[in-house]
């Protein structure tokens, strides 16, 4: 009645399943990141090498939003609050950051765009948010972001009503242990 070999085989399968589920919990981090990059989910912006150049058809208003976490002693604001952008055109915009403390501080920025469905069409070529930024005491820095609106926005039906995109950044104090 008790078939030990069969019992061990079933148990081994189940231990494997449990280990796999624990692995999936960890894999959820890279998988979710990949999912967001591919689909632009949650307003995740795209990264691209080169702008295709302005195409006729539509202009989009891009608004710039800047936030600073409570424990980061920085002033951080966009140079202009909004610009009109032709689809496909390569745009260079600046944010201004100033360290108002008397010690050097390193910050790192998270970002997205709203409406979230604009994520797949908002491509960055270069951005201060790709790396951590360190400001000396009292130092002020212009932080550039170079981007374009993907012309595919003209073709996709779900993107028809996107007339305005808000690009948002939040600066946090970078965690020292993470700086390697």
């Amino acid at each position: 009645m008790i078939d030990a070999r069969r019992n061990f085989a079933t148990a081994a399968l189940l231990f494997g399943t449990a280990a796999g589920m624990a692995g999936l919990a960890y894999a959820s981090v890279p998988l979710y990141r990949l999912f967001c990059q591919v689909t632009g989910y949650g307003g995740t912006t795209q990264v691209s090498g080169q702008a295709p150049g302005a195409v006729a058809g539509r202009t989009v208003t891009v608004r710039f939003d800047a936030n600073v976490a409570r424990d980061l002693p920085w002033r951080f604001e966009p140079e202009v609050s909004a610009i009109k952008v032709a689809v496909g055109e390569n745009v260079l915009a600046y944010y201004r950051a100033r360290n108002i403390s008397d010690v050097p501080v390193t910050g790192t920025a998270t970002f997205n765009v709203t409406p979230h469905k604009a994520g797949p069409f908002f491509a960055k070529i270069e951005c201060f948010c790709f790396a951590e930024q360190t400001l000396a005491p009292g130092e002020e820095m212009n932080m550039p972001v170079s981007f374009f609106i993907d012309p595919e926005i003209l073709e996709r039906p779900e993107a028809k009503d996107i007339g305005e995109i808000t690009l948002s950044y939040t600066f946090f104090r970078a965690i020292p242990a993470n700086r390697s």
Partner: protein
Amino acid sequence: MAYGTSDAHGSHDHHPSGWKRWAYSTNHKDIGTMYLVLAAIGGLVGGLMSWLIRLELSQPGLQYITDLQFYNVLVSAHGLIMVFFFVMPALIGGFGNWIVPLMIGAPDMAFPRMNNISFWLTAGGLVLLLTAGFTAGGPGTGWTVYPPLSSNEYHPGPAVDLAILSLHVGGAGSILGAINFIVTIINMRAPGMTMHRMPLFVWATLVTAFLLVLAMPVLAGGLTMLLTDRNFGTTFFKVAGGGDPILWQHLFWFFGHPEVYIMIIPAFGIVSQIVSTFSRKPVFGYLGMAYAMAAIGVIGFVVWAHHMYSVGLDVNTRAYFVAATMVIAVPTGIKIFSWIATMWGGSIRFDTPMLWACGFIFLFVLGGVTGIQLANAGPDMAWHDTYYVVAHFHYVLSLGAVFGIFGGFYYWFGKMCGRQYSEAAGRVHFWLTFFGVNLLFFPQHFLGMAGMPRRIPDYPDAYSGWNMVSSLGAVVTIVGTLWFLWLVFRTFTAGEKAAANPWGPGATTLEWTVPSPAPFHTFEETPRIAPEPAH
């Protein structure tokens, strides 16, 4: 195996005695008993905490508990203890270990030594959790342990680490126990007992065990991330390092939603056995009942974000989770209707177990209905984190799962200890508890509708009336609990000898074919299952 047959028989009769019988036990009945004792301890400790909470909430203002972190710790520990160290050990470890091998005609669990370590890991988990409560202010994180509150920024001491360790250890015990159940049920059924002829309690345990194997490791993974975030500088849940606290909520509820079915499905199984026994009819729609549990288990894995409507999910995601959650009402409805159809036309006896089973059905339907309301993302924005949610999940768990536990207790206690409880005393216990818990939890719907937030020890005067009523309900349940303890004591000291089958022809499962109390070893000779329809 190497010894002769007669020697093997001889060694069976000399099982270890004294403390070794229990500490080293590999016997499914002894381990089941230990789980039930652990659950009783957990239930009393967790219950004591809830009574302290109700004491403080009986009036507006802070009167008995002025240390607010202590209040947070009470709320957190009450939730964790009731979930992990009361309901789960009672339903799965306790009744599962005791009854599943008996029901399928197996001599014991597939891996008796692993069974032993499962129990001791669970017991160790409870000790660790209680230790956490007395360390560095205690873990005041809620049972959901959300960061950033559970991060080292807001809980710098070792309390949360100990609580995490407790859940790790208890979770490991649950996974090992679940694997043991699956292997036992799949491989060790008596000849003739096909999967489609297993008693529904065995089906319930099988589905529960699969949920545990799939969900518990995700909690373990999330807890490990939290532990390394707290102690080793990782930033899984810290935005500044590129992490996201919402990730914890996703991982936690991917475990947490199946977890609520882990707590209720074994109770489904117990209620099915009881309703069938006391209606003297096979369960109506047996296959539908079995696969409804499996369906609830499967759907339970794809609805987790209905606990997180307020985190900023976009409208399409919320629409999906609303729809998926509503779907669960279908298999649940199949179960409710099948229980009623089982009773329909049966010759019903309202003995104590049947009272608890009927109480379960009534209260679970009530809690299920508020669940359907809360499944809607729109209204949930208003009800999120109010006493409406507290009332909902106490109706399905505190009243549902716990009524299942008491039903199972009265159903099988004679089989376990060999003495029958006093029927009159059992009925008094039921009515005291039924009245008490309804008085306790029903007014909390009104408080939640009126906007009273959960986990807060103080409230405006406007909420004082129903809070007082609710606390009086807690007093009634205290009386009911004391009555229950007295009943157990009286059964052990003065109970009548229990018959092998005290329930008559309605009780058709295999555990009623062995004497009461069930001997130390049963079904060493495999029973043959007669070819008749399963119940």
